[in-house]
């Protein structure tokens, strides 16, 4: 897979709290924008990949876009945890010859539609293939939201490592600084101080305050993946150096309550190892990283599991300023899911592509390698 496929087009709608139109239309708009960005047409597309929880019906999407023939379609399980797995599916489809160009997409109305942060008291037994089968065991006990499902790992992590809410807050201050200078971010022009973070109300004590939570967003992001040979004819391709997905025994996305040690993301560690091995790259080669910050503690556990710092050392890595523009590993330069928007993780990949193309609102100095982690799935991108 190493470098033989590329992202050749990216597109997005505006990010808002009230899109005023259907997810299908949002997806179609983002896909049309991504094709235009790549200089391709729907006649060039023969593959579609999304992930579970996306409400868009593939058949409806094709009816609107006018794709002449679909030769590959798939959905990655695990909801947002599977967001980067789309690139593994798309690359596998292209490399196998099953499809020539694959569109990956996600459309949300997670604010104006079914709010992601709402209290759910009627779960489905298998949770729509989102990798959260343990959700049914949480409902009778008032554990009804993503923040509450993920709070158990967070509290245990704090207990084992001595990490505090203020340590989490220092990362949020950095994400909000990036968001402040990103015109597309929900929190554009609204940086915060550590005191602001510490004064924001508890959602799930002692780990998650309001300002530790990602956005609920309406909007869509789409990208086009094809072979790197074909990509040479497009204006601004970015290579997929590696894409990986690892799910370990007893590990769940969000409702991860039964792994032996909840203070470590063992699956993310294996996913990261797979990425670097497949790409032939080292941690030190990564110029910028986008790490799924649904809630701040999840960012800390991934940062450690991916090997950018040792176990329990994320708090020091963050306090030393390494997430900032001149740090060892600038992270979530769009403001992250906390500061920019929550298109279920795909806007992180969008920002990684922007950085490698030189078009980020918080552009770094000539980055060549970007990592995107959604915990269970991830990609390494290269130009």
């Amino acid at each position, binding site marked *: 897979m190493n470098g033989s496929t590329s992202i050749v087009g990216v597109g997005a709608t505006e990010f808002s709290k009230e899109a005023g139109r259907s997810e299908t239309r949002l997806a179609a708009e983002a896909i049309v924008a991504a094709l235009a960005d790549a200089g391709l047409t729907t006649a060039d597309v023969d593959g579609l990949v999304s992930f579970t929880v996306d409400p868009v019906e593939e058949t409806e999407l094709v009816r609107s876009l006018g794709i002449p023939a679909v030769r590959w379609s798939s959905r990655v399980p695990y909801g947002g945890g599977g967001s980067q797995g789309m690139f593994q599916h798309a690359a596998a489809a292209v490399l196998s010859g099953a499809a020539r160009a694959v569109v990956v997409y996600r459309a949300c109305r997670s604010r104006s539609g079914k709010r992601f942060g709402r209290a759910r*008291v009627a779960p489905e037994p298998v949770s729509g293939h989102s990798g959260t089968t343990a959700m049914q065991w949480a*409902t009778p006990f*008032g554990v009804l939201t993503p923040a*509450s499902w993920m*709070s158990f790992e967070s509290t*245990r992590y704090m*207990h084992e490592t001595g990490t505090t809410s203020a340590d989490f807050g220092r990362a949020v201050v950095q994400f909000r600084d990036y968001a402040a200078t990103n015109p597309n971010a929900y929190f554009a022009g609204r940086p915060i101080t550590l005191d602001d973070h510490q004064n924001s109300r*508890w959602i799930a004590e*002692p780990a998650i305050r309001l300002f530790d939570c990602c956005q609920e967003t309406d909007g869509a992001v789409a990208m086009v993946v094809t072979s790197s040979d074909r990509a040479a004819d497009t204006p601004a391709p970015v290579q997929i150096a590696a894409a990986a997905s690892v799910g370990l025994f007893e590990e769940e996305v969000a409702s991860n309550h039964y792994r032996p040690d909840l203070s470590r993301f063992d699956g993310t560690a294996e996913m990261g190892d797979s990425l670097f091995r497949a790409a032939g790259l080292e941690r030190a080669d990564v110029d910028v990283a986008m790490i799924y910050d649904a809630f701040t503690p999840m960012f800390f556990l991934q940062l450690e599991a991916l090997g950018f710092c040792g176990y329990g050392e994320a708090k020091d890595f963050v306090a030393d300023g390494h997430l900032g523009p001149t740090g060892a590993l600038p992270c979530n330069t769009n403001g992250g899911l906390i500061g920019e928007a929550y298109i279920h993780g795909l806007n992180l990949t969008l920002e990684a592509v922007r950085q490698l193309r030189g078009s980020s609102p918080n552009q770094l100095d000539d980055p060549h390698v970007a990592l995107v982690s959604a915990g269970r799935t991830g990609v390494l991108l290269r130009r």
Partner: protein
Amino acid sequence: MTDHVRPAPLRTEENDGFWTAAAEGRLAVQRCDACGRWQHPPRAMCPDCHSVALSFADVAGTGVVYSWSLLHHPQHPSFEYPVVAVLVTLDEGPRVLSNLVGVDPADVRIGLPVEVTSAPTAEGDVPVFAIREGRA
């Protein structure tokens, strides 16, 4: 006595034995008849020996808090806030998600010894935990 009525658990072919026991005031965890493996949440097959002979066996009902959280927001009328949510490691090994009841939220901590009791839902009781007397 209270306006807060917990939602009934969702029953499936795999989990029915757990909730049936709970409704009778017992904490029963799935165990493999062939190799004796305790497992929770229950499942269709023993992942160690692939036996499908699985039973729900009563456990002692004692354990320690593995992790916890005080849930403040959003609030649902079925619960009183903050919800004291806990993961309990049972003495038999499996971990269960539940609530700690009759406790000052400020006293909740990892390692707290707990024992099972029951709380009503819209349809039958579910197992919740209280601090084990004399052991805190």
